[in-house]
């Protein structure tokens, strides 16, 4: 289970039962992601981002990237894209539980924490489950 895996980075998402990505909010109300570090973080307060959004764009990574990519040795093409979190920000993300041909502009998406390799977890979005 992804809960037992170590997050790829600290402070990237909350440790709630329903985890959320951690962005930052400027005094102006503007949201940024990821939460900056160092002096750039001074004026920001952490701001957990929405778990739901709409697909803004997408592609599939069909070749194994060079370093700094640190994925499993056995490369499998993966989907990625941008998801617009209404009123907040558009975040870049892995896309899981979907095939390339399923994806379309504006598709409802939801946040999920997924295995990255045998040791670590990363974040992703997947098409929202129709109940």
């Amino acid at each position: 289970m992804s809960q037992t895996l170590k997050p790829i980075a600290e402070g990237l998402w909350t440790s709630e039962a329903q985890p959320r990505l951690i962005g930052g909010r400027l005094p102006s109300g503007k949201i940024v992601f990821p939460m900056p570090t160092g002096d750039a973080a001074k004026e920001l307060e952490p701001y957990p981002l929405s778990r739901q959004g709409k697909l803004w764009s997408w592609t599939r990574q069909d070749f194994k990237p060079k370093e700094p990519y640190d994925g499993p040795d056995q490369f499998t093409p993966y989907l990625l894209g941008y998801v617009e979190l209404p009123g907040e920000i558009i975040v870049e993300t892995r896309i899981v539980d979907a095939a390339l041909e399923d994806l379309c502009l504006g598709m409802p998406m939801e946040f999920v924490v997924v295995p990255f390799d045998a040791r670590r977890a990363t974040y992703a979005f997947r098409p929202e489950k129709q109940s």
Partner: protein
Amino acid sequence: MRDVYIIGAGIHTFGRTDGRSGRDQGVYAVREAMADASLEWSDIECAYGGSAAAGNADIMVNELGLTGLPFINVSNGCATGGSALASARNAIAAEEFDIALAVGFDKHPRGAFNAKPAEFGLPEWYGQTGMMLTTQFFALKIQRYMQLYGISRTTLGRVAEKAFRNGEKTDHAWRRSKVDLETILNAPMVNDPLTKYMFCSPAEGAVALILASEKKVKELGADAVKIASVAVRTRPPGSFEVFAPAIDIDNGGKPTVLASNAAFQAAGIGPEDIDVAQLQDTESGAEIMHMAENGFCKDGDQEQWLAEGRTDINGKLPVNTDGGCLACGEPIGASGLRQVYENTVQLRGRGGARQVPGSPKTAYSHVYGAPGLSGVAILER
């Protein structure tokens, strides 16, 4: 400010030249440019140059001669060439010098660029998880654009088909044989919707341009092309750029639009006045989107433009007449100057098999790069 002209243009063939360093290719291009302008190294009064991955430019004085000239290294990513050109032009316009050199060169390893997150102020996880690839950015940008403005995969293919058709006629190009539309569209996918023929590859090459004041042009009787304007701009708020873990929901401006507007305004002409254009085509989608961002057509019109061949060498607005990045490859430090080199060739009427007919009088070049900057140069004959 006084007018500045290009009086010498030299190039080292793009592609792969094993056994010759990037800087040596730069030296080669400088000598070609000097021969073109009938000048000696001792005539060059100041120099600006650089590369992204092949070292400092000023060391070239070891080969070219220790004349004591000021040689300023430029390190500005994809805008290295454009910034060198802008600086050299300003040095002459400011009346400090009469003859200046702008040189750009590079030599990259094979395969896609692998940028380091820290160099772009980004966290390590962004690179580790495989989201920090230039190819992905281009795919993500054109994917959305295609949905919004009805651009087809066939149109993406036509851009690449044209590039290789033009590259076949270009001495300095790397890819010098035609590739048919069917092959382009059915080639292995790199990042959907872009196949391997729709992407340029990191490469090697060098370009040198010699600039001069009007006084020198007359004195030398040079075959000169006027630099009507040069503009380099960085990104405004809310833009969508390469290496962006997030994008502002308030859709903002684009660095290309800023640079384009500034260059047109300074030149006192508009897109409708341009006879030939070199637009950054790191992949097929980039050329399509840059046609609109630079003001040459409306979003979505590209579908018809490509179908009708309007950007062919014989078309209404020839685009990337030497095959662009797609056929020449991309040595980052040299790429922007290659566009200006090609425009100089076209305005002088020296294009040979790829010469734009009807003696073009105005030429436009546009470069784009990380982390969201753009350089535009307009030349006039």
